[in-house]
């Protein structure tokens, strides 16, 4: 298959980037999008040019590294899939494909298609954990967890922190990510003790990082590779209300 690529090239966050045209031929239809970029980079290296920098790790849809905005969509045209799960057979022979990085003030550019997502790590550090005392582990059945809550918590915990929600959101809001991380613990008894501090801390850090404000558009939910639901954002709003109004 043959493709005409328009790839965002940017040396660093200090200089402006631009779309650069590449033509690539003899692409196997069953290659993943990342493998197609690998082939392109191989060509570029042989020609003595600078290869395209892009993030990738597991290549099986669970690490959340492969951040690419393909043809105007986070992770490309598929629903509930990452870039590594996007295969070239999805496109037609001779298609023009735009490839851009995630764009948000809170995700500063590193190089080409890679952006710095450590804002997410700093949000997690403000409360996305439970404190556990050292010593002998207690019996697992000591704390009863209702089945429905366990399921909802697990659904929220499926978030891989890829940042597609921020990338797809017209407001660059991170609320789907933060709400998933708050929800997975708020739904379980183990998350109870630090519940108030978690909601206040993580939301405070989210605002400090310069993410936008949610206006309930729903693009995040539509583009999330792990199908995290907007109900999590409503839960986060409740957690925040409780933390600011009800709790001492």
């Amino acid at each position, binding site marked *: 298959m043959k493709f005409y690529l328009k790839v965002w090239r940017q040396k660093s966050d200090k200089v402006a980037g631009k*779309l650069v045209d590449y033509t690539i031929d003899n692409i196997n239809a069953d290659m993943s999008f990342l493998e197609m970029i690998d082939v392109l980079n191989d060509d570029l290296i042989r020609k003595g040019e600078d290869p395209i920098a892009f993030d990738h790790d597991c290549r099986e849809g669970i690490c959340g590294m492969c951040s690419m905005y393909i043809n105007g969509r986070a992770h490309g045209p598929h629903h509930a899939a990452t870039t590594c799960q996007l295969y070239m057979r999805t496109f037609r022979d001779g298609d023009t494909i735009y490839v851009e990085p995630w764009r948000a003030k809170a995700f500063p550019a590193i190089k080409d298609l890679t952006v710095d997502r450590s804002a997410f790590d700093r949000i997690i550090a403000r409360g996305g954990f439970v404190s556990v005392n050292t010593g002998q582990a207690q019996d697992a059945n000591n704390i009863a967890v209702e089945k429905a809550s366990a399921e909802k918590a697990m659904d929220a915990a499926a978030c891989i922190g890829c940042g597609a929600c921020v990338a797809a959101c017209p407001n660059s809001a991170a609320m789907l990510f933060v709400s998933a991380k708050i929800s997975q613990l708020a739904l379980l008894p183990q998350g109870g003790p630090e519940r108030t501090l978690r909601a206040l801390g993580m939301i405070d850090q989210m605002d400090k990082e310069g993410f936008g404000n949610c206006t309930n558009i729903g693009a995040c939910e539509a583009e999330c590779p792990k199908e995290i639901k907007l109900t999590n954002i409503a*839960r986060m709003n409740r957690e925040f209300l409780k933390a600011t109004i009800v709790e001492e």
Partner: protein
Amino acid sequence: MAKSALFTSSIGKKFLMGLTGLFLISFLIVHASINAMIWFNDGGVTFNKYAHFMGSNLIVRTMEIGLFLGLILHVVDGLWLYKLNREARPVKYAYNDEGTNSSWYSRSMAILGTLILLFLVLHLANFWVKTRITGIEQFGVDAEGQENLFAVMQAVFQSPIIVVIYVAGCFSLFWHLLHGFKSAFQTLGLNHVKYNEAIAVLGIAFSIIVPIVFALMPVSILLGWVR
């Protein structure tokens, strides 16, 4: 992060939008109900009676101040959020296929709201300024000798251009409500599988019915359906 976060955080700003939005929605119900009295077709007698009550009652006049405050908060908070949200993405996408993951009106609340605000300036100049400031004595009295706000409506809606602007304003309101109604509930954390469908249906019904009722008023007067 202190308790003051309730007012300063991103979620606090959302709450303010949702609460003031629901408050303005409650006003729309009152406004539409009273103005619908023109369809009694009694030369505006019933309508004038209720309009006079709303204009002279001390409690209602006090609530009017609250209404203006609510509107101003909604507008200022909305424009502030719009500015912050644009700043959150300094470099735009060269190619963004937004239509596949969200509706255009949900992404256009600021522009729809601005259109409604522009309409409101005209609307207040047409009616509020006349009834509250300059007076409507020159419009005479109705069959029962009451102040004749109905005659003001008849005078304003003789102009087809004004009627078209009012109908356009109602379209903006329709799309603004179509997203805003259910969005307010989500913002306030009222999202539950038991009620989501009811909220969605109620929101769509409200967004359609209220603007249609409003749009039919100038149309009815221009076309002479009510006299």
